[in-house]
């Protein structure tokens, strides 16, 4: 498995959790899907809005709360 991808994914999840004030800048290469329509903050908020149950989540997935 790729150590760089793992680092990126960990940073992404931490950014969504808002842990340590990491934020978008800590995620290597992260960019908005659409520069014109939504900025990165809105993209992040879109995930955060769906991540209320994330904080302290166990390693096993809670069910039925994600966008599909």
């Amino acid at each position, binding site marked *: 498995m790729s150590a760089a991808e793992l680092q990126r994914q960990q940073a992404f999840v931490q950014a969504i959790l808002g842990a340590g004030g990491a934020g978008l800048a800590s995620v290597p290469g992260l960019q908005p899907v659409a520069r014109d329509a939504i900025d990165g903050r809105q993209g992040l908020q*879109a995930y955060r809005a769906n991540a209320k149950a994330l904080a302290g989540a166990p390693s096993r*997935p809670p069910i039925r709360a994600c966008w599909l």
Partner: protein
Amino acid sequence: MHRSSQPGRAPVGIGWRQPHYAQLREQSPALAFLEVHSENFFAQGGAALQVLQGARADYPISLHGVGLSLGSAAGIDPWHLDQLAGLVERIEPMQVSDHASFARVPELHANDLLPVAFTRAGLGVMADNVQQVQERLRRPMLVENLSAYLGFADAELSEPEFFNALTLSTGCGLLLDVNNLVVNALNAGCDDAQAVRQSCDWIDAIRPGSVGEIHLAGHARLEHLVIDDHGSRVCPAVWQVYRHALQRFGRVPSLIEWDTDVPELSVLLDEVALAAECMAELQRPQEALA
């Protein structure tokens, strides 16, 4: 005989959600298959599993997961895979699928479908994970394209290139979510006509024969963002792209998904009829994966 094996029936099913468990069993509407979320049936017994096993006698079941985390560089959770393998053995589904996303990092499982980077390293991670799942389940699986709200600047592959490489290297199929294509295009600033065109171009870049199922759903249009919430009827733009997909890939099994504000069952059956109408317009034989 399963209802799906009746000759001439369009291969269209619905996502079977809890509000319709009883009604569907009572009415037994003509549907080609039912799709459920695998994780809701991981318990070793109980009412939900009993309901699913009952429905299995009347309908083929497609198991659609949201938690395998196929793109995770931390690998597949062995507990999760064990549960899925047990369910597959019990239900003998017509199809097993999950998403081209990640959720799992060490010590945490994000309760969402997070986008993967379309890099060669990201492709390698997902291919390894898909192989592991397929070897455990002893069957090929389908992997669904995502609606994503963020992406990565260092992408080395387009999304269709990523899926073409994944399906070729692992033997898995693509679960084509047409709504996700349109949502992504709208979020990229396209108007409806541009979103249709961009989505059709995406479809044209996918290798024929690699699509094993199609998902159809509604989305919510907010002021600055389109959310893939599966909470409304399929919109005209998505139907237009669906027709294009059928022309390219043939009569691929298709599913109406509705997960937010789930309406009466009759509304879902109306949508099924519309999808069947689209299929009836086709003359081409099926080119989908068996």
